[in-house]
């Protein structure tokens, strides 16, 4: 892959967008979405995909970008557009390869190497699926209870009253049991996966 020398470096407004994305800021997400979706849709649709496929691929590419900015780097070595396009291309190529097709014809849009990002994303995507499975396997009220404590950062008193426990000590015990179950569900997959 050749990097053109006249490739534009990301400017400050792009940096602000990436910072917004890292906070899951609606406005920033919308701007990036609006500016880049059509290009990716054209790529996918021109290579025997549907607009639904395009939506999946584009959104996954957004997740890859999100993962990247989550690590605190708001400086890409290229424009957001180039990054999203490159990632989308890789993702769609992978999807096609699963269907025994090996090449795609892209338009004239620039791309950069995203090997590292793809590798990291695959790992994270596996982890996401494992946590999703563990969470879904957990059942209620455990799932809501853990979400309330760990993700919504509610206090034990609040949790006790909203989940109908007589006191926060009981809620704490229940939370502990749920946590142990979730960890077991999660790590058992993790072990299977890494073998």
């Amino acid at each position, binding site marked *: 892959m050749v990097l053109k020398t006249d490739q534009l470096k990301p400017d400050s407004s792009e940096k602000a967008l990436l910072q917004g994305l890292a906070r*899951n800021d*609606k406005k920033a*997400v*919308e701007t990036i*979405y*609006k500016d880049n*979706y*059509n290009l990716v*849709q054209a790529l996918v649709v021109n290579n025997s995909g549907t*607009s*639904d496929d*395009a*939506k999946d691929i584009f*959104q996954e590419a*957004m*997740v890859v970008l*999100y*993962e990247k900015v*989550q690590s605190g780097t708001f400086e890409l070595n290229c424009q957001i557009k180039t990054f999203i396009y490159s990632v989308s291309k890789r993702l769609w190529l992978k999807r096609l390869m699963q269907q025994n097709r090996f090449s795609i014809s892209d338009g004239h849009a620039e791309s950069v190497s995203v090997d590292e990002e793809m590798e990291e994303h695959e790992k*994270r995507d596996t*982890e*996401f699926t494992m*946590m*999703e*499975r563990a*969470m879904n396997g957990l059942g209620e009220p455990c799932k809501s209870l*853990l*979400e309330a404590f*760990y*993700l919504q950062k509610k206090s034990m008193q609040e949790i006790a009253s909203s989940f109908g426990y007589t006191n926060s000590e009981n809620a*704490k*015990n229940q939370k*502990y049991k749920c*946590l142990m179950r979730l*960890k077991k569900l*999660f*790590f058992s997959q993790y072990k299977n996966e890494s073998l």
Partner: protein
Amino acid sequence: MEDIKLIEAVERYISGQMSPDERVYFEQLRKTNAEVDQMVFEHTFFLQQMNRFDDVKNLKATLNETHIHLGEKGLIKAPRLKGKAKVVYLYNRYKKVTAIAASIAGITALTISALVWSLSPGKPANKQDIENLSRDIRNINQKVSQVQKQNQVLNQKIDGVKDQAPAESNIPFITGGTGFLIDTKGYIVTNAHVVKDAQHVAVQSSNGKDLFAKVIYSDIEKDIAILKITDKNYKPVSSIPYSIRRNGGDLAEAIFTMGYPRNDIVYGNGYIASKTGYNGDTLSCQITIPANKGNSGSPVLNKNGEVIGILSKKENTVEGAAFALRSKYIFEAVNELQKDSSYKNIKLPVASTLKGKERTQQVNSISGFVFMVKVD
């Protein structure tokens, strides 16, 4: 230290809530006790995983909202919802509200018809120890009072929405069973008793969306019905992961099922207990599996992901005993249906892509193709 206390300490350590003294003590403990150190490491990793999961889940939700929003405004080239996109959007938003409102209106009538239904003589021999698995109408009475309470609060909102929602949304879908796709174009098989006497039928997919459907074939005697999703919002799927077997399974063969005895999909597993059904009925086979009302019409699959039957009845006197209509009757029903030229193009899935996969993977792939069947 007890485990629960230890985890609590680890969490306070990670989140920096420990006092300096405590922290020094805990760090000392970490150095001297490998188990504690390992636990801190593992728990930090786990909490990070949980947070990441939540972040990405939230981002995905934002992305989906954005997609719809930009699509509606025409700011991206995504195909727009046809016709009354706004109305559909509002309808989806207030679906629950309208459904509750509508059920109040329909509920009295339903209760009466439920009583008539439950008192009217069925098949005399089967009546006492066998029952169809339709979701329980008898519970409705209890629910009425709950619903009425909610209704007071919701009445105001409804007034605003009524005008905008399409007329169809006022159908009080109550009873139901399960059905599963047998053709990518939206043909679903279920039990005839699930959709018997239905005015309207809707199916709800695993993502909670209601899609309107109509009954295009029903055979009460065999207890099999075929529905066609007629909803504009239905997008044909590319392929169905499971296949339908022509011949039934073997005695003691391991089987599993997925259905909607409640609002979420429920998995059950068991085995073929007898090659015949109730009282030697050769249409079906007896299986041992946890089945509940609402499981009617669930696919019964073998370990290769081949549908060998449709869960249709359960026996009350024997715990765990249920009956499945043999899958070959799906072929018969489709053959019958294809005599009508407009249904010539139904194509049953012939090859299962689930062979050799882990059960969790199989279930994951199948769940999107199993629907809750709702009738009014």
